[in-house]
């Protein structure tokens, strides 16, 4: 038997994944040997995230394919790696005081966040369907566990169970779609699939189209777009608040990056078939997300529905399938990370042990007691709605112009209309904060780490809104 030659291994491309994995394992093992004090874990995790962000810049001549075309380092993946590192770091920072207050002492919390980040980086950098599947599964399993990490809280259990059952079901769809596409093209590599579609031999193959539909269902569930959004409000509500913020940003960004790669980059030639489906998904997500949010009285559910609506906007970038679309996706997710962590940071500050104050009416009169907090919350909410000159406005503007460039005028009009609707419920919270009398005494402990996160988020939201130029230049490259 002749020896099998070893394949070429490019560890430099893989650097962020390696760093994060090593640090994840370090956190896991350290946790086994230290006592009750978990601050060492926080320190190691943050160091790991910082080093991963730096190591993602190791490659210069982008794009670089490695591992037989299964892994790519390009502009999209590097930018998203940065978003993941920032959002995971913010999630860890915002968790410190929250976990202490709520008595979450599980050390695995931090290693799960790091491993989840590994999955996200893999998702954003994969050009092979098997890798995308593995990435999605790593991310999902971490999230199922993080959602249920408060094991004595029935709501947290409910969130984990619902998320797990529906998520596993959706994974089935995703895998089936991948299998059908593999069956028609004979490859799991996106580059080869793209080539076969370009040649035109598989364009009208019925199994190919069936695979595309199943992939849309799978991805649609993972990003919580209507009609696959049912899990989102319950899971967002039941999960611990830092986890909710975490899962609203990083994993969603990662899945959207993979979504963009599989559809906009791999199969633009058959975009009439998937474009119309995404169009419907996008419009439904915007309308149902925004109209659903109007009816909510719980701030976490409100933000959950609002995130469904935001997925609707983000899908427009995939429908536009141009380079401006990918750039706008990057900018939007960065801006979204700051807005979401800011808003959830304040939600965490308002709560206290045993009483999280999650009803919107609990925000009544916040402006009299804590004007700075109320002002920050107002800025985050208005930015989510898309008011100039805040980050949310620039992000939306950018996505809409990507769509207009491809001639999707009606879609953009619907999206703008929806942005207007969304102000109704964002302003509702603002009205409560500024114009109602407090219904009960605020008993707010201004925990320094959470305040720090809110400050970073505030800076990001304002900076990206007023001086978007440098970041946009980076995103467009």
């Amino acid at each position: 038997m002749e020896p099998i030659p070893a394949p070429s291994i490019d560890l430099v491309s893989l650097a962020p994944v390696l760093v994060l994995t090593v640090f994840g394992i370090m956190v896991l093992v350290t946790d086994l040997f230290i006592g009750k004090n978990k601050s060492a874990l926080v320190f190691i995790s943050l160091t790991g995230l910082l080093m991963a962000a730096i190591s993602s810049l190791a490659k210069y001549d982008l794009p670089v394919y490695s591992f037989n075309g299964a892994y790519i380092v390009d502009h999209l993946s590097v930018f998203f790696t940065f978003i993941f590192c920032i959002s995971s770091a913010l999630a860890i920072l915002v968790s410190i005081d929250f976990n202490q207050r709520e008595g979450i002492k599980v050390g695995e919390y931090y290693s799960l966040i790091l491993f989840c980040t590994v999955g996200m980086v893999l998702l954003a950098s994969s050009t092979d369907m098997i890798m995308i599947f593995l990435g999605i599964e790593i991310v999902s399993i971490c999230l199922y566990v993080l959602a249920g990490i408060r094991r004595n809280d029935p709501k947290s259990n409910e969130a984990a169970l619902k998320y797990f059952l529906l998520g596993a079901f959706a994974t089935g769809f995703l895998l089936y779609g991948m299998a059908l596409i593999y069956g028609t093209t004979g490859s799991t590599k996106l580059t080869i699939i793209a080539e076969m579609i370009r040649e035109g031999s598989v364009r009208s193959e019925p199994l190919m189209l069936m695979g595309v539909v199943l992939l849309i269902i799978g991805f649609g569930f993972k990003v919580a777009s209507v009609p696959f959004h049912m899990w989102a409000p319950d899971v967002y509500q039941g999960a611990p608040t830092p986890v909710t913020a975490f899962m609203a940003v990083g994993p969603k960004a990662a899945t959207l990056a993979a979504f963009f790669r599989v559809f906009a980059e791999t199969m633009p030639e058959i975009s009439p078939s998937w474009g119309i489906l995404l169009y419907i998904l996008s419009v439904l997500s915007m309308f149902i997300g925004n109209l659903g949010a109007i009816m909510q009285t719980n701030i976490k559910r409100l933000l959950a529905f609002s995130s469904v609506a935001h997925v609707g906007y983000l899908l427009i970038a995939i429908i536009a399938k141009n380079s401006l679309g990918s750039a706008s996706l990057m900018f939007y997710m960065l801006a979204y990370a700051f807005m979401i962590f800011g808003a959830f940071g304040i939600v965490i500050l308002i709560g206290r042990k045993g009483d999280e104050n999650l009803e919107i009416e609990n925000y009544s009169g916040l402006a009299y007691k804590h004007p700075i907090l109320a002002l920050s919350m107002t800025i985050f909410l208005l930015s989510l709605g898309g008011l100039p000159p805040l980050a949310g406005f620039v992000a939306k503007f950018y996505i809409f112009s990507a769509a207009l460039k491809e001639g999707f005028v009606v879609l953009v009009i619907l999206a703008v209309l929806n942005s207007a609707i969304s102000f109704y419920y964002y302003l509702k919270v603002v009205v409560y904060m500024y114009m109602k009398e407090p219904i009960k005494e605020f008993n707010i402990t201004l925990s320094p780490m959470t305040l720090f996160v809110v400050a970073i988020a505030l800076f990001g939201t304002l900076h990206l809104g007023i001086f978007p130029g440098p970041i946009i230049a980076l995103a467009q490259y």
Partner: protein
Amino acid sequence: MLESYLGAGLMLLLAIGIAVGMVVMTSFLGPKRQFADKMEPFECGESPIVSPHQRFSVKFYLVAVLFVLFDIEAVFFFPWAILFKQLGIFGFVEMLLFILILGVGLLYVWKRGGLDWE
């Protein structure tokens, strides 16, 4: 082509034959003495007739999940073992890394008490 499965087929038949044979033979050859106590199913000190509505501890489930995970790990060894010589040092390092990561998992499960019955 099908001839190559002859060995595997014989093995299968042999296995089925032994299993069936043992059951049949014991019922023929074994001595039979039946009385009331013996006809009750053996339950160590427990009454054999209770309500079925008692739930099993989640501990069983944890063991089952860990079993599935290590089983999946083991499956990767089959092709590796067949190709061990051909893959050379590269294959060895590759598998070492794989085992190392799962070894961390085992260490974790062990230290956390996942293997204890309490």
